[in-house]
């Protein structure tokens, strides 16, 4: 495995909300009473079944509670041993599943305030992503503007499988706000389960959802590129989180090949897809989904034609590697430095 260097930025860690009741102190009186009197249960999606091996490394799994719910564990497991300068918290709590735009907005607001008080205020290395209520674009923009006043929020977080293709123009006010406030949009694996988690319908097994994430990322990248998001918002960065990276080059070849024949359908796309990806899209490292041979790895990066696309991540507490082996074998020391330090700082301007 390639050697880690100190001062890196972990672009994808997951602090867990212990239970819906953990958010009660951050809800308004009205919504607090609604949660208790209605008897609302914990928001659990099927994306990460608690006992699935991938949900937590055995040595990162607590005896009680959810993996990732303890700051002390996160410090002991990643912040300290990986000698990180920053870690970006991406809370994956099922608030996106809620259909009521009012309730979803209340939960997102509570979740963001919970992140500030229970995590960001307690460790200076932590940074946050703003979780937004995408059922209402107005409320999503308002939440971005509210949270962005705290410079420790460095990103807006969306799910790769929400309600609509992410390039759709109805969502553009979110992108306008993000670009204006120097916030990249992080697109994380996972579904709001408002649509089947695969393009072909509902599968039977966990692995179908998990492997299918890569197709969802491809479809979203296509949508974002051909709808012209990066023509309208050329400074906007989007980070594909937990997307995998091995599919990028063949996917881009396919997209570019077909675009050349139907260019007139989306004439605002005036560059090759790979060029758009190089200027506006980044990918988190883990889960790294390429074969383990260094030659394959080097070829993969050659095909991307850039050493600026990949950002270091551990995906804590999910089980993607053992020990300290977060960096795949075959990365040169220069590339390690780019992935761990330079690329994250170039992507997240608020990281300081």
């Amino acid at each position: 495995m390639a050697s880690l260097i100190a001062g890196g930025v972990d672009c994808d860690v997951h602090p867990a909300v212990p239970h819906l009741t953990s958010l009660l102190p951050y809800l308004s009186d009205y919504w607090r009473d609604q949660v208790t009197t209605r008897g609302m249960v914990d928001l659990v999606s099927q994306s990460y079944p608690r006992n699935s091996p991938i949900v937590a490394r055995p040595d990162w799994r607590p005896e009680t509670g959810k993996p990732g719910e303890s700051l002390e564990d996160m410090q002991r497991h990643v912040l300290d041993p990986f000698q990180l300068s920053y870690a970006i918290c991406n809370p994956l709590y099922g608030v996106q599943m809620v259909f009521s735009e009012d309730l979803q907005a209340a939960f997102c607001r509570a979740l963001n305030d919970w992140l500030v008080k229970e995590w960001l205020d307690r460790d200076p290395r932590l940074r946050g992503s703003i979780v937004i209520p995408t059922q209402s674009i107005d409320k999503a923009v308002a939440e971005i503007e509210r949270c962005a006043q705290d410079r420790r929020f460095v990103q807006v977080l969306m799910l790769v499988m929400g309600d609509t293709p992410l390039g759709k123009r109805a969502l553009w006010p979110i992108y306008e706000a993000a670009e204006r406030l120097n916030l990249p949009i992080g697109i994380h694996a996972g579904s709001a389960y408002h649509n089947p988690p695969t393009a072909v319908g509902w599968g039977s097994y966990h692995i179908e959802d998990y492997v299918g994430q890569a197709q969802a990322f491809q479809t979203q990248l296509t949508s974002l590129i051909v709808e012209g998001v990066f023509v309208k918002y050329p400074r906007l960065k989007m980070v594909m989180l937990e997307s995998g990276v091995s599919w990028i080059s063949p996917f881009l070849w396919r997209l570019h090949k077909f675009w050349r024949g139907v260019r007139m359908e989306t004439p605002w796309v005036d560059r090759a897809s790979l060029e758009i990806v190089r200027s506006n899209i980044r990918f988190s490292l883990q889960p790294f989904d390429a074969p383990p041979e260094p030659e394959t790895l080097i070829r993969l990066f050659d095909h991307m034609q850039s050493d600026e696309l990949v950002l270091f991540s551990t995906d804590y507490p999910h089980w993607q590697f053992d020990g300290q082996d977060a960096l795949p074998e075959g990365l040169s020391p220069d590339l390690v430095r780019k992935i761990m330090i330079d690329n994250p700082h170039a992507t997240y301007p608020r990281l300081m």
Partner: protein
Amino acid sequence: MARHVIAPVDELPPGTRKFLEIDGRPIAVFNIKGEYFGLMNRCPHQGAALCEGPLIGLAQSSDPGEIEYTKLGEIIRCPWHGWEFDIRTGQSYCDPRRFRVKAYAAHVEPGASVVKGPYVAETVTVKVESDYVVVEL
């Protein structure tokens, strides 16, 4: 560069195109609203008979959703993969730096000057009182 007489003008009215082979090269000559254009009839992508494709306009946009449509009938679209080429310059629009089809100048000459030469008119009988479409390659 030689000038080839390819047809009397009345054989190539506006909206038509003529396919021919000159020095072993497949060529098409178009009459678009009274202007004449010569183009190599071989797509630089994979060799299709490019000039058998439809003539369309040029869609351009700097603002997603707003399309400016110009050069109506001046863009030839390859029948195989849909690539667009500018009939005036031969440049492609999907990859202008790498792909271009050879374009040849074409125009009308009166028969009186055609008979004086130097012109190559192997297959066309030239009469002094007629006008002819001439392509240069």
